[in-house]
């Protein structure tokens, strides 16, 4: 079992929550709770954002046309709003990844450190 990672600073995550959510939705439709759960488990707890920020973000993304939200019923459970990424959302995700790559390369070119390397 992989070791849990120390939590990353909130201000670093804040601007990238949208990218993480779009990345999860690109793999298939999902609902709010599953999205946060998936992000936290994949990052081994390093990315833990205030969960209350997720729904305003999802609603914003819905208004922007990046995701489509629809209520669905699963078995005996209460209905949940399931979000699906749209073609505009995929384009936005690619833009976010491009920005992230450029930032990452810029930091690498200054520090000379690759993400998996340690400075000491």
């Amino acid at each position, binding site marked *: 079992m992989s070791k849990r990672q120390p939590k990353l600073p909130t201000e670093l995550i804040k601007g990238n929550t949208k990218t993480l959510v779009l990345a999860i939705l690109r793999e298939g439709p999902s609902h*709010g*709770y599953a999205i*946060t759960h998936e992000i936290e488990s994949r990052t081994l707890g390093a990315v*833990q954002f*205030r*969960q*209350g*920020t*997720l*729904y*305003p*973000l999802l*609603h*914003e993304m819905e*208004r922007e046309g990046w995701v489509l*939200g629809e209520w669905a019923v699963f078995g005996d459970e*209460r*209905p*949940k*709003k399931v979000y699906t990424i749209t073609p505009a959302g995929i384009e936005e995700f690619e833009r976010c990844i491009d920005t992230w790559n450029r930032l990452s390369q810029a930091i690498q070119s200054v520090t000379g450190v690759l993400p998996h390397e340690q400075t000491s």
Partner: protein
Amino acid sequence: MSSQNPILDDYMRAVELQVLSVVPKEDAQEFLAETRIHLQQAIRSRVECGADRHQATTEVLKRYGPAKLNADDFSASWFQYKQVTRLTKLIGRANLIAVKQFVIAEVICLGLLEVGMKSLSNTNAQLGFAICLTIVASAVAGWLVGQKVPVRAVRSIYNALVPLTLVSFLIGASLMPNPTGVFFALSQLALVLPLGCLSAHLSSSSIRRRRTIQMIKAAEAASNP
């Protein structure tokens, strides 16, 4: 909707009151339902892992964040997208409202100052008039922003006034040795910004409190016909 979990119900009631003091019920219903379902799921998964229900609820709500903060996040996002234009997308709808109100207030203020300075001969009277006018204009502009931007109005005033003050400083510096422009920028920093923020805070708080009281009264009236 009750969950037979008083802690969760209290939290949801707090979120609901905060959200509905800004957002119409039909626009907030989905957010409130999603929030409740999310919290119930999170509590259930902790209980399934062996946690006590009370402890699970407390932990989940702590992770979720304060009710007011979550409600304000949603309300601010709703407000931003209520009327979308290129300009509001670029600088934010609330910021745009604040910029408009304060630019109008400053233009009126400068016009009145021009008239006042000509009609008053005494320097002390001129200074007093200028300070009084700035105080009144800031309070009125801040109040109007608070009425139009019911959530995070103070932040929008700060976002609007900081660039305006910087522009004033730059113009003031270019007019030196005439110190009028720099004095104007200093008055924006020392008077307009704090008074505008205070007035906006009072204004938006009062409008939200009034709506909350109305909602509570309506709910009471509905439960006791």
